């Protein structure tokens, strides 16, 4: 009997005349060995039929006998015009899918006939498949009793399968292979039929929900569902430890989706129902097809999204100007992602590799920023999900400006007394703001197990370690400092560009020749100068009011001639430290002219401010006290003011803490009365300090 491959070969030779083996190798995708093997098979068969065999003619190649018997044709098996032999990668997937769906015993022979390759090739493919599966924590197990099986958590197994399917869809022959496999399990034509059924369910769903799904993902999910349904028929089912029904039940779209899931033949009571429903909820929507009513539903997720953005801003040291827009667009991605994570629904990101290559820094930062989401779901986020979210951020920030600026973690090893080591810690932290000192060890406490927790160490004594070590003296001299900076840059940051001068180095040079009054101030201003932005300063720390209203920010004056002048004077310390640009003052005045004297918040108190975009470079505040009241609104005596707090905010949140403390302070009318009477900066500082710890 001729098999498909041999029959195809014979057919080809018969229809196209003599062919050289080399040519046939390419044409049929077989090896020379396979062809000679097939020729032998064909010849045996031909002789059986009473025909002369195929000859290998040196000048022409393989030749079929010239006198062809028409009767033989009828006996030849029908050959599909195109017989495709799966590639090694495809074989891997096919094996997994077969084991995943086949509801009877899967033996090696099943796989051989499925893949149409030799036993040894199948065994090799199974090995490959097992390796691939292992990455998803799934094991391919073979026992005599049960044949081949997938062992692992059902959620992981499905993740694996989603991966296979998503890869398959991108292969040229993928759909065809999937269809063949499905039809083998369920009878000819069943694939198309079931595909249509699910596809129409989904498009109904789109209409009812008023959204539009991403097409590629829809195809993926349909095929996944096809195979999943087979698996469910096989009797394998997902099971969630706790009851999660409630989480979904409150969703607006749940009802519609749930009904569709029931149509697929999955009973409402099962966890499987939840799984499939959340699979559908987790489908990505196309931008611009989003339903506003659904949007308002889940505040908690939305605020989570905002937190993620803020986290990202801090980590990446950028400020995103159209935050609101990003939050919205991100929300529509985070929402389905949340349900996917919650229910362990697989998603495959075909762009992942590219994203990681193109935006390595951004990817790392985004992944870090997603911490709140991970904590919320209590499950680590996959790289696939993080990749998608990276794309969202990527479109809102200027990627070129972002570098991974994560603080290096370090420890100090110091056998000296506590006083010296603390001094050392203080000095190093000051010298290298990019380093966070986790702890101080004496040599005997040093724990090699915990080396993974930090990036480098500083030590006063030499000793053996796997981490980069920078040797230091207990008390750092200027020369030491320069050397540490140098070593840090070259060994730890691995800076290639020798010429670029860092702020730290500039600081050290300045220190050599001058006395610096305000070291922090100089450092910050230099940073501004070098980096060109300021949002970097706060790294999650929200300043309290006494951090902002420092001595230099407070002025006491007898009188001014107009409220405009008052604002100019009050804001002048902010100009001096370059926290604002001159245009910010104009913006504040314009605001009052346009919107009225609403900045007078309480009798005697005004808090002028404008939008961060109007020229704020750094979060700051200043205070002007006038001995003689100035009117902010000529005809309204209630708008007379003696205390002017200028507020310069960089965003909507970093000044929150200080602002709430200021509110507390101003709420007590006695405090206002008291301040109006004050004549020294000290007394202001004292009062401010007392409200800084709330």
């Amino acid at each position: 009997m001729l098999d498909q491959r041999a029959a195809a070969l014979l057919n080809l030779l018969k229809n196209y005349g003599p062919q050289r083996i080399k040519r046939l190798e390419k044409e049929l995708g077989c090896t020379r060995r396979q062809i000679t093997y097939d020729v032998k098979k064909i010849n045996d068969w031909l002789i059986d039929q009473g025909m002369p065999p195929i000859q290998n003619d040196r000048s022409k190649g393989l030749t079929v006998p010239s006198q062809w018997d028409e009767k033989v044709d009828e006996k030849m098996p029908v050959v599909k015009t195109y017989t495709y032999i799966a590639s090694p990668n495809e074989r891997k997937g096919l094996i997994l899918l077969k084991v995943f769906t086949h509801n009877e015993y899967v033996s090696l022979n099943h796989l051989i006939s499925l893949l149409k390759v030799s036993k040894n090739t199948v065994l090799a493919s199974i090995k490959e498949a097992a390796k691939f599966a292992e990455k998803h924590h799934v094991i391919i197990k073979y026992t005599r009793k049960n044949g081949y099986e997938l062992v692992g958590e059902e959620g992981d197994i499905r993740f694996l399968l989603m991966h296979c399917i998503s890869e398959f869809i991108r292969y040229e022959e993928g759909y065809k292979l999937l269809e063949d496999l499905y039809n083998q399990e369920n009878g000819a034509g069943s694939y198309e039929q079931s595909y249509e059924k699910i596809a129409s369910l989904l498009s109904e769903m789109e209409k009812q929900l008023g959204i539009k799904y991403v097409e590629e993902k829809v195809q993926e999910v349909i095929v996944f569902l096809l195979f999943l349904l087979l698996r469910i028929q096989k009797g394998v089912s997902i099971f969630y430890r706790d009851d999660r029904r409630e989480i979904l039940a409150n969703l607006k779209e749940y009802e519609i989706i749930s009904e569709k899931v029931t149509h697929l033949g999955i009973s409402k009571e099962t966890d499987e129902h939840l799984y499939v429903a959340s699979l559908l909820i987790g489908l990505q929507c196309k931008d611009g097809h989003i339903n506003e009513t659904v949007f308002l539903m889940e505040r908690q997720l939305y605020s989570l999204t905002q937190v993620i953005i803020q986290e990202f801003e801090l980590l990446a040291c950028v400020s995103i100007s159209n935050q609101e827009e990003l939050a919205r667009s991100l929300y529509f991605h985070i929402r389905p992602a949340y349900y996917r994570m919650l229910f362990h629904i697989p998603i495959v990101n075909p762009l992942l590799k590219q994203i990681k290559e193109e935006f390595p820094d951004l990817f790392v930062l985004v992944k870090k920023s997603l911490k709140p989401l991970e904590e919320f779901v209590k499950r680590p986020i996959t790289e696939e999900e993080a990749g998608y979210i990276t794309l969202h951020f990527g479109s809102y920030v200027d990627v070129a400006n972002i570098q991974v600026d994560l603080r290096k973690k370090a420890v100090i090893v110091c056998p000296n007394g506590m006083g010296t080591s603390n001094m050392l810690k203080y000095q190093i932290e000051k010298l290298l703001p990019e380093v966070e000192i986790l702890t101080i060890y004496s040599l005997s406490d040093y724990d090699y197990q915990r080396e993974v927790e930090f990036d480098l160490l500083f030590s006063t004594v030499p000793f053996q370690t796997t981490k980069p070590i920078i040797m230091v003296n207990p008390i750092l001299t200027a020369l030491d400092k320069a050397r540490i900076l140098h070593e840090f840059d070259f060994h730890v940051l691995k800076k290639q560009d020798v010429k670029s001068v860092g702020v730290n180095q500039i600081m050290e040079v300045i220190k050599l020749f001058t006395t610096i009054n305000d070291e922090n101030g100089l450092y910050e201003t230099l940073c501004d100068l070098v980096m060109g932005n300021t949002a970097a300063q706060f790294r999650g720390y929200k300043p309290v009011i006494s951090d902002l209203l420092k001595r230099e920010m407070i002025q006491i004056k007898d009188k001014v001639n107009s409220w405009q002048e008052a604002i100019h004077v009050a804001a002048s310390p902010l100009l001096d430290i370059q926290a604002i640009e001159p245009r910010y003052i104009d913006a504040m005045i314009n605001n009052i002219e346009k919107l009225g004297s609403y900045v007078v918040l309480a009798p005697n108190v005004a808090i002028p401010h404008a939008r961060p975009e109007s020229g704020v470079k750094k979060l700051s505040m200043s205070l002007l006290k006038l001995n003689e009241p100035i009117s902010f609104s000529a005809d309204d005596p209630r708008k007379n003011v003696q205390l002017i707090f200028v507020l310069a905010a960089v965003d909507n949140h970093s000044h929150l803490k200080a602002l709430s403390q200021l509110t507390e302070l101003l709420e007590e009318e006695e405090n206002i009365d008291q301040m109006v009477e004050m004549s020294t900066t000290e007394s202001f500082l004292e009062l401010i300090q007392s409200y800084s710890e709330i």
Partner: protein
Amino acid sequence: MITIVTVCGNGIGSSLMLKMKIEEICAELGIPAQVESSDFNGAKGRNCDLIVTIDELAKQFDQTAQRVCVVRSYINKKKIKADVQEVLQEVSTNKK
């Protein structure tokens, strides 16, 4: 749950203070509320149950379309409470 938007000229200073006070007051009164701060343009036409702002800005809202409550101060909790308490309770009961 009622939604409230506090409004000042810029949406970052006074309205934020007011927002904090309103949240405190709602908590005291046991009214579940979602409070947001906003600038004037952002609040106009916003879909919410109540807008809280001061006199100057209140006049610029279309009070037939949006419920606006006027407060005398952005920061004095006693005054704010006196101004909003009734409205809050009313809005909250209607919502139920």
